[in-house]
C-alpha cells in the first residue's frame, strides 16, 4: 500500500505540475497581445518618415523639424565647425565616434557633403531638447549644443563632451533625395 500511495502522490504531483505549466503557458499567450498592444500602432509607425526641404538653409544656419514626435536638428555647418570636429582626438570623447562617421549619410550622387549634420535633438541623458539651434542660444564650450536641464554639452559634431549624458546625439537614418531635399526615416 505504501508503495502504491507513493506512486499515487508522484502521479498527482506530475499532474499538478503539468496542469500548472499549461496554465502558465495559457496566461502568457493571453498576456502577449495585451502587452504587445502597448507598442507603437501601425499608424504611429507609418509616420516614421519625413521629407524636408533644406535648400533655403545657408551656411551656419540650423533648422528643427519634427520626426516621430521628436525634434530633428539639421545644421549646415561652417568649415570651421567641421575642422574643429575633425581635429578632436578620439581620446577626448566619452562616446568615441569620428565626425566622418556621423555625416556619412550626407551624400548625393556619390559626393560627400560633410557640411550637413543631421541628428535627433533629444539629449541622451533624460530627453530634454538641447539649446544651440539659434545663433543667440548658448552653444556650450565646444561650439555645439548645450542642454539646459542638466548641463550636458555637445560639440559641433553633436558628440557628448561634458555633463551627465552618456551618448552622442543620435543620428537618424536619412538620405538626400536631391541636393536640397532630405528624407528622414
Amino acid at each position, binding site marked *: 500500500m505504501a508503495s502504491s500511495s507513493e506512486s499515487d502522490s508522484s502521479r498527482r504531483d506530475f499532474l499538478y505540475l503539468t496542469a500548472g505549466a499549461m496554465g502558465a503557458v495559457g496566461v502568457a499567450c493571453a498576456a502577449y497581445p495585451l*502587452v504587445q498592444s*502597448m*507598442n*507603437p*500602432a501601425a499608424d*504611429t509607425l507609418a509616420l*516614421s518618415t519625413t521629407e524636408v526641404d533644406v535648400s533655403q538653409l545657408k551656411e551656419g544656419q540650423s533648422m*528643427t523639424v*519634427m520626426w*516621430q*514626435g*521628436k*525634434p530633428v536638428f539639421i545644421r549646415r555647418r561652417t568649415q570651421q565647425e567641421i575642422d574643429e570636429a575633425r581635429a578632436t582626438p578620439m581620446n577626448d570623447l566619452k562616446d568615441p565616434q569620428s565626425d566622418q562617421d556621423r555625416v556619412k549619410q550626407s551624400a548625393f550622387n556619390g559626393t560627400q557633403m560633410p557640411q550637413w549634420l543631421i541628428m535627433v535633438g*533629444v539629449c541622451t*541623458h*533624460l*530627453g*530634454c*531638447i538641447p539649446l544651440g539651434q539659434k545663433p543667440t542660444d548658448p552653444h556650450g564650450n565646444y561650439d555645439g549644443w548645450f542642454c*539646459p*536641464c*542638466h*548641463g550636458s554639452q555637445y560639440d559641433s559634431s553633436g558628440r557628448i563632451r561634458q555633463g*551627465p*549624458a*552618456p551618448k552622442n546625439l543620435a543620428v537618424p537614418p536619412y538620405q538626400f533625395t536631391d541636393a536640397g531635399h532630405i528624407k528622414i526615416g
Partner: protein
Amino acid sequence: MASNDRVDFKNPVINWIDERLPLFSLMHKEYAAFPTPRNFNYWWNFGAIATVMLIVMIATGIFLAMYYTPSTDRAFTSVERIMRDVNWGWMIRYIHMNGASMFFIAVYIHIFRGVYYGSYKRPRELLWILGVIILLLMMATAFMGYVLPWGQMSFWGATVITNLFSAIPVIGNAIVTWLWGGFAVDNPTLNRFYALHYLLPFVIVGVVVLHVSALHISGSNNPLGIDPKTPKDTVPFHPYYTAKDGFGLTLFFLFYAFVVFYAPNALGDPDNYIVANPMATPQHIVPEWYFLPFYAILRTFTVDIHIPFTHIVLISSKLGGVILMFSAILMLLLMPWLDRSPVRSAVFRPIYKLLFWVLVIDCCVLGYLGGKPPEGAYVIVGQIATALYFMFFLIALPFLPKIEKTRPLPKSISEAVLNKN
C-alpha cells in the same frame, strides 16, 4: 465562525441583513469595539486622514473625468474649460490638484510616525510592506495624474521620468518605446496614462483594505511601543478614536481648505499653465514637491563607474542615479529586517531618536536640493545628504543596537499613562 461573532442589533432590518451578510457585525467588531491602545497621540491621526484623502481624490476625480478629454490637442483646453465654464469645476479641480499634496503630506507624516515609533517591527512587517506598496502606487498615480493637464511640466516631467527606464542596459530603449506607445511622449502615452490614472486608485483601495486587515490582526502600535497586556491598556475604537480622528481630520481639513481657497497654485509650477510644447524644454524641469527628495537622490550620481583600466562603462551615471533612487524606497521595505533593536519606540532609544530627526532634516534638505539646478555646491550637498540617507538605513539601523543603551520600558501602557499624571 463569522456567525459566532455576530452582534444582536435592535433594528430588525439591520439584523435581517446581518444574519445573511454580517457586514454590520464586521464594522462593529473592527471599528466600534476594536480594542485600541489608550495612549495614542495625534500622530496616530494620519492613517485615518490618509484614508479620507483617498476617498476625496476618487470622488473629485470621477467628476473631473466627466469633462476631461485625454487627447493631446484637447487635454489642456478641456482642463481650462473645467476651470472656467464647468459648474464648480474650478473648485473640484483645485480640491483634486491640492488633494494630491495633502494626501502625500498625510502619508509622509504617517510613515515618519511609523519610523519613529518602530511600527514596522515584528509582528507588523507585512503591514509595513503593504504600506510601502501603497506609497509606490500613490507615486505612480500622482505622476500620471500630473501628466493629464498636458502643460509644459506635464510633458517634460513625463519625458524625463519615462526616460529613466532607458538607463536599463540592453532592453531599456525598447521598454521606453513600449511605455510611450510611440517614439516620444505623445497621444498614445496620454491615453494610457489616463486609463491607468483612473485604475490605480482602486488598486490602492484594495491594498488599503489589506493594510487595514493586517493592522486589525496585529493591533495598533502605540507611542510606548509595548504590547497591550490587559483590558486596562486599551479603549474601544468608538467613541474614543473616532472622536480623536474626527478632531484631527477637522484641523487637517481647515488647512486643506485654506490652501484650496486662498493659495490653490502655491504648490504647483506656473509652467504647467503653458500648453505642452514638444519642441521647447523649460529652463528647469522640477517635479512636484512630494517627489523632490527622490529627484535629488536621482541626480547625485555624477560619474560613470568603469571596469578598472578600461573605457568600458559598468554603471553609467544615469543608471547609477536610477538605481540609487529606487534603492531609497527599497530601504523602507527592508526596514523591518535592518533594524536589530528589540525596542520599538524611539522614546526609549536616545540615540535613535536623535538620528531620526537627522533623517527628517536630511529628507527636507534633499527636498530643497531637488528643486535647485544640479550645479556647484548643490551637487556636493546633495551627495552628502544622499549618503546620510542611506547611512541611516544601512549603518544606523543594524549597528546602533550594539552600542545604544535603551531606557527601561514601562511594565504596561496603563501604568505608564497613570504615572504620567
